[in-house]
């Protein structure tokens, strides 16, 4: 029974990873691709790690899997945020199908507080 649950969890997690790969190919710009690529980074990994946790034999291994999960949940949003911010501020082109860009005015008039926040 546990094996069946583990199998389903792993397969769904892998399906998310494949969907992310397809999204990386099909989506038109960096931001849309990030939308696709960050899904398996949290949900997909939770599913696969949960499936593995049901299968490993020692309790210490479950702790390791949990540690990976916690690290990933802390770091994935931070990393994605930094990449998105850097890509936008570096002037990456948006897809022509973008319907609204609320930061466009700020980008054209120069960033408010430029230099104050730039050097961390």
């Amino acid at each position, binding site marked *: 029974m546990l094996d069946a649950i583990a199998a389903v969890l792993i397969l769904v997690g*892998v399906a998310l990873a494949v969907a992310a790969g397809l999204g*990386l190919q099909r989506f038109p710009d960096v931001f849309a691709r990030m939308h696709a690529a960050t899904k398996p980074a949290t949900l997909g990994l939770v599913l696969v790690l949960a499936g593995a946790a049901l299968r490993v034999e020692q309790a210490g291994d479950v702790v390791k899997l949990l540690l990976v999960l916690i690290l990933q949940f802390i*770091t994935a949003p931070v990393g994605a945020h930094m990449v998105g911010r850097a890509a936008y501020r570096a002037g990456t082109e948006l897809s022509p199908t973008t319907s609204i860009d609320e930061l466009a005015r700020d980008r054209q008039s120069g960033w408010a507080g430029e230099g104050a926040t730039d050097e961390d």
Partner: protein
Amino acid sequence: MRIVTSVAFLGIAVAGLLCLVRLVRGPSLADRIVALDALLVVIVSGIAIDAARTGEGTYLDVLVVAALLGFVGTVNVARFIERRGA
């Protein structure tokens, strides 16, 4: 379980290949780092599936290191992009 993990490995291989294609094609540095990030998640998933296949936790230490190093790399490249531009 062997059949399930074999199918899962196949999916992981497909996902990794798609990420690699995006990594090579670019076009911008941000695209590449997004693809590299996704590739790292795929690798971590693959190692976890291997642990599920064998029931052994030998390679799980690698997972912890990979998850941490991936974050450091992503943040550094993001800062580099911001300073240098696209």
